[in-house]
């Protein structure tokens, strides 16, 4: 187990380093420099370059960059809000994004679980078909389609919830974005729960438990559910990816002041420093979650660990 964890952590660190290298190379390739101002003369430009360390050899610049990134110094924004440290820009936005994302996962997991169980217990009935249709749609239709539809129907037409995010009504204005983000989570968990549950219900140990005379509820909650839900951790990886992509667009649609809309704004106004810094944060978050998922999976299912140690 120890060996496995160490191996995972080392791989994760290497990945993070590789990303930093890619980001650094891309930053060098970015068109234009922030000091392309016509009004600057050569000495002023040289002093600015010296201030930001741009006169150093490229290798030194890279190491400084890596050290700064890992220390949490992400540079300053040039366009969106001039000379504000990016860390400061992000600090106020991160909680909002995480809040909406967390709510989406919770809604999705709960509804998806119920839908999957319903489909499994009422297999081959109307309920099953209905749940399957919902989950197929949820998996294949992108979250911003839901976001637009919900915001038109419930925000614009019926006016049940605010169409745009407002700081006064955080809970109310998070409802629609959370629901639109949760669709993919809901659908994949429903699909997964159904498949696992059907398999577990048909297994020998369930037959044994039933023949021991256990009651229906105990049978389901103590035996079936527990075994069916363990592998659910495998769907976490695509979920994280979807939430990240989804949040960018959904935050823009509902104009939520989160990290996603900051990234979209930065892309649109060519604020490369912010784009690079946010890319680093997204990557670090993604790698961190993947690491936790991998390790959890190794703890829960030793077969995976052995297989991965083997190769």
């Amino acid at each position, binding site marked *: 187990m120890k060996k496995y964890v160490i191996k995972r952590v080392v*791989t*994760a660190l*290497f*990945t*993070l380093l*590789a*990303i930093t290298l*890619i*980001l650094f190379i*891309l930053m060098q*390739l*970015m*068109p234009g420099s922030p000091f392309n101002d016509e009004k600057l003369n050569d000495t002023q430009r040289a002093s600015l370059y010296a201030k930001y360390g741009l006169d150093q050899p490229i290798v030194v610049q890279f190491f400084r960059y890596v050290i700064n990134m890992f220390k949490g110094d992400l540079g300053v924004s040039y366009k969106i809000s001039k000379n504000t440290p990016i860390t400061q820009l992000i600090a106020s936005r991160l909680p909002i994004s995480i809040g909406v994302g967390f709510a989406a996962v919770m809604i999705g997991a709960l509804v998806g679980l119920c839908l999957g169980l319903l489909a499994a217990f009422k297999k081959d009935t109307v309920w099953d078909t209905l749940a399957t249709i919902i989950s*197929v*749609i949820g*998996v*294949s*239709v*992108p979250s*911003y*389609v839901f976001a*637009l539809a919900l915001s*038109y129907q419930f925000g*614009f037409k019926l006016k049940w919830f605010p*169409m745009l995010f407002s700081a006064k009504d955080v809970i109310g204005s998070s409802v629609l974005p959370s629901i639109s983000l949760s669709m993919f989570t809901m659908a994949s968990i429903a*699909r*997964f729960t159904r*498949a696992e549950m059907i*398999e577990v219900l048909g297994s020998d140990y369930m037959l044994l438990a039933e023949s021991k005379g256990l009651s229906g509820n105990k049978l389901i909650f103590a035996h079936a559910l527990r075994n069916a839900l363990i592998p659910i951790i495998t769907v976490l990886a695509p979920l994280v*990816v979807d939430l*990240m*992509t989804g949040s*960018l*667009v959904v935050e*823009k*649609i509902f104009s939520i002041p989160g990290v996603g809309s900051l*990234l*979209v704004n930065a*892309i*649109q106004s*060519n604020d*490369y420093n912010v*784009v*690079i810094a946010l*890319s680093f944060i*997204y*990557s670090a978050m*993604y*790698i961190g979650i*993947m690491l936790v998922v991998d390790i959890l999976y190794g703890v829960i299912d030793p077969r995976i660990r052995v297989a991965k140690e083997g*190769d």
Partner: protein
Amino acid sequence: MADTTVLTKEPYVPQDEDFKLKGNIEDILVDTNFASQSFWKEVVARFRKKKSAVLGLIFVLVITFFAFIGPGMNQYTYSGQDLSQKNLAPRIPIIEYTGFFDGHENIATTKGTKTVNLYFENKLPDVFYWFGSDNFGRDIWTRTWSGAQVSLIIAVAAAIIDMIIGMSYGLISGYFGGKVDMVMQRILEIANGIPRLVIVTLLLLVFKPGMLTIIVALMLTEWVGMSRIARAEMLKLKEQEFVLASRTLGAGSMHIIFSEVLPNIIGPIITQVMFSIPTAIFTEAFLSFVGLGIPVPRCSLGSLISEGFNSFTTHPYQIIPPIVVMALLMLSFNLVADGLREALDPKLKEM
């Protein structure tokens, strides 16, 4: 010495008349009831049994048909603007008499909603925009289908290119095993750890968006999954007798990989390609939405959606066609891929 004389002699090549048919071919009984079917015939039969997959295939074909025929079906072009005819609601000849698609729309004002028909107010009795016209007076019908065309071309090209790359990578890694496999898998792990979204976004920031750069950027997103599948299949097959036989006959590694093993794993590969097409369509739409899509005046489904988004509360008909086409396209490709996966591998548990 006698042996060498035998060897130098011209070898005798048997002729057809040296052989005589023994037995009577008509006497051989073939069990027609349970005759073995070819693999692909069975796949088609299984695929046709799955209604959702057939429906998906029909939708894919219909949308593809319109994507290539649709833009030429009326006199408008995807970039032709007519500012005097902007923001017109959908109007279709003949159907307009039913009250639908007759060019009316509800406009919300401070005194409540009122119904207007801009075709009559602007004195345009003979003008028809089947899906309406947008903010610059461009025909949404033409733009939707030409956008669908661009999206489809980008998605299919990206899927095919990443199939070729991912497949070769996985097959080579799996076939050679050992150190080669170890190094290639470590590289893969690192590549997989990088969020694709980040890489695609950054690449398009550096290399300005265009059809080719978008295809290249999308290509980078799916090859990891493809190579995993190819490697797993290769590990299953490389110990089998036909590979051993081929190697004994002196076949080279590349011949074994691409001519012997590859035809046997084409099923899972095709399924994976079908799954990566909707992902590519989605990623392209996402990029357009954040402003890194196909440059104007060309349009894709994604750029149409992001244009329509700006006025979707006042003129909802502008965003509906591209969003419906995109949702249907992604749904259908997923259904087809699901059906194909089950048809190619009936043992697979349903998920």
